[in-house]
């Protein structure tokens, strides 16, 4: 049970109160995606929502997806493809990609989908579009796409 100031975002609750610092703060305004976590399996910017609004929710952070010697397939693919440099956006990228692959699987269309009815393929354009809410100033984007494509089993 967490006794918390009602002004505290999920992001600050994780970082400052619970000690889970894997989730990063890049802007605190929903503009960068560094703080992406999964709430009941869906990706959200954790800086944009207050902790007190999520009393019963299941929140998964990067720490919950894998550990250094038991990485999730996406985490391992990020290492292999050098899908990061400084690593600061990386937790958000991987949480985001984890949920994004689910969205793809469920057939959600995106801005670049040619057909809104057909099941979307994990093409580079679909991956890039769906990952464009996660900024990476080191600009590992091509490597991030390579890593996600490999896990999604997509072709270029």
């Amino acid at each position, binding site marked *: 049970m967490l006794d918390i100031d009602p002004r505290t975002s999920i992001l600050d609750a994780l970082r400052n109160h619970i000690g889970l610092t894997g989730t990063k703060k890049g802007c605190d*305004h929903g503009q*960068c995606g560094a703080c992406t976590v999964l709430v009941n399996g869906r990706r959200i910017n954790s800086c944009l929502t207050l902790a007190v609004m999520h009393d019963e929710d299941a929140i998964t952070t990067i720490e919950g997806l894998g550990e250094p010697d038991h990485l999730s397939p996406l*985490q391992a693919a990020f290492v292999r493809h050098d899908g990061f*440099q400084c*690593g*600061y956006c990386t937790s958000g990228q991987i949480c985001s990609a984890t949920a994004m692959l689910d969205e793809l699987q469920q057939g959600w269309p995106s801005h670049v989908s040619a057909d809104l009815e057909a099941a979307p393929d994990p093409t*580079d354009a679909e991956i890039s579009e769906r*990952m464009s809410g996660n900024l990476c100033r080191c600009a590992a984007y*091509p490597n991030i796409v390579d890593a996600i494509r490999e896990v999604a089993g997509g072709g270029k």
Partner: protein
Amino acid sequence: MSSEFVMDAPDPRNLLDHMAQDLTGAPLDRPEGPLKVSGRATYAHEYRLGNCAYGVLVRATIAKGTLTALGDEAVRGLPGILGVFSDDRFLRNPAQGTADKAPVQGAQTIAYLGQPVALVVADSFEQARHAAQSLALRYAPDADGVFDPESDAANIERPDAKQRDQGDFDRAFADAHATVDSTYTTPAQNSAAMEPHASVAAWDGDRLTLWGGYQMLKYNRNELADSLGIDAENVRILAPYVGGGFGSKLGISPEAVAAAIAAREIGRPVKVAMSRQQVFEATMRRSETRQRVRLAADAQGRLTGIAHEYRVSNLPDESFSEPVGQATHFLYGGENRRIVHEIARVNRTCAGSMRAPGEAVGMLALENAMDELAEQLGIDPIELRKRNLPERHPEQDIPYSSRMLAQCLDEGARRFGWDKRSTKPGTTRDGEWLIGMGVSSAARKNITSQAEARVTLTTDGDAVVETDMTDIGTGTYAVLGQIAGDMLGLPRDRVRVMLGDTDLPPGPGSGGSWGASSSGSAVLEACAVLRRQLADRLGLVADGLVLRDGDIILDNRRIPLRDAMGAGPLEAVGIFKPGKTSQDYAQAAYGAFFAEVGVSSITGEVRVRRMLGTFAAGRILNAKTARSQCIGGMTFGIGAALTEELVHDLRDGHIVNHDLAEYHLPVNLDVPQIEVHFLEERDDQACPLQSKGIGELGISGAGAAITNAIAHATGARIRTYPATLDKLLAVME
């Protein structure tokens, strides 16, 4: 023991090519990767100290004047508030890279809008933020602020040392067969590293420990100590992981000094992270530039004269000014040369180094001008560039250390399919999209810097590398381990690399692309000593020592290295110092950029369809991390060409778009699957590793390939960066 290597003459030993482990250059994963992808790597703000308080910086809301009162009456009584601090020691401007001493201090005097003037400290972040927003700051404003570098009121300086006048440029220009006279502007920019600047300060008696996101710890320690008026011996800075820098974390910044002052005062550790808006307003910006480039050429396109005259800006009293003409000095020939470097003094956020200061913006103009000349003369842009590569440095008359620019241009052209480019601009279409291809040279001055590293061979026969050098995403953990592994014949996982702690031997810091070559050379030197010590121990000659996979290989047997360590661990400190080769040879890394763009004939939107870079930067230390560095640089080039622009309000100098929604970094969909290729090269004049800097090479000219492609697609040239759709719509037919 310690050993010093001074780079006074070329080092042809080429040691790394004679080792048996074959690690250096290999595309190995980053050893810290698993920590980063699982959220376990700890960045500055994330150290958990007991009883830690939170500080929030408060910004000036006027552009120039004096702070007369904090207006904190209503705040002081709030629950959880521990203090409001504002002090003569607070930093007015962040420190420039390698300053090594306190920057301009004093929070009371306000020199730009957004300058930090106070720190509010509370038990919780939420309460500190609330109080910071509730202060009723009072000022005595000055009316004489200057906010526009082009205004008549701006004081303009032309420092002698930064000008160049060689031959008779005016005559060459008047006599030329072909000329270009174009003026380009580039806007101010922000590094926008994803980790906002943050510091945690904790005192133990007179000793300060600071966990901070910084690039150059040995300098930062002196800057922090000097700002606080204490002995540097009493300051320790830790930065094992840094969430990007790109120049913005070269020098100590306001949050570190404020955190240290408050922590001392309240007797508790204090954490201060800048908000994203504060990063934009109170760290470093890259200066905007106005650049006039004039080229004079003969009928074959050979340059007879080149003039690059530009204006940049900074706050009064700041020593740094964007060295826009840096590549112009050495890249192309032409007898008659003029460089005019002007600095306008303005009340805007401090200007400092951002990735490749100089080349990043100077080459946009120079490489556009070269394209304009090529088009005018009907010469292929690659051919024109190749015709203008001088034998020797055109101003200093010294040889180049190594320069594979022509090969990079040719190799890139072949891989990119340059032969399919139509010779007539504005003639290739794909539906609504006008398609164009562009090229640009890449060039970035090579610099090295003094570095120390300690390497220990443990009794287990493993190695530990230690230095206060940082890894800001640059791959330091990877490459230092590869070099040590090669020299000591150890698999990569038997070398541990410890970085980012001023208690360790001082490194050069991450900046100017000098980190890997300088620190790596120090590691190489330490390992060379260890090899001699080991050989002595075994009664062998160091030169003939073969070490591989943790074994000492003798004629027909292998002895585990561990067995030789029974007499105790071996330790050596290697010191690398730049020497005469930096003056005797013109050193730079080179490459070529190729871009294919589509420009919408309906909206003017530009999409980069393909982008490729070929680079020659001496020995590549890790093909995977080096490639990533180049992709990163080229993406900065996409941003510079198309989207990035800090907008200053000309009435008070404030930054209008001080966040990531309004300052447009390239996002994933803006960046194609960039291709990077390295050409094999060794440079024995650069350093004992035979490597040159690569962190900034990928940006140096990249944006010009895109704008040259836009000109090829549309037949219209945008000279006001970035090339946004409004500008394109206005000039397209």
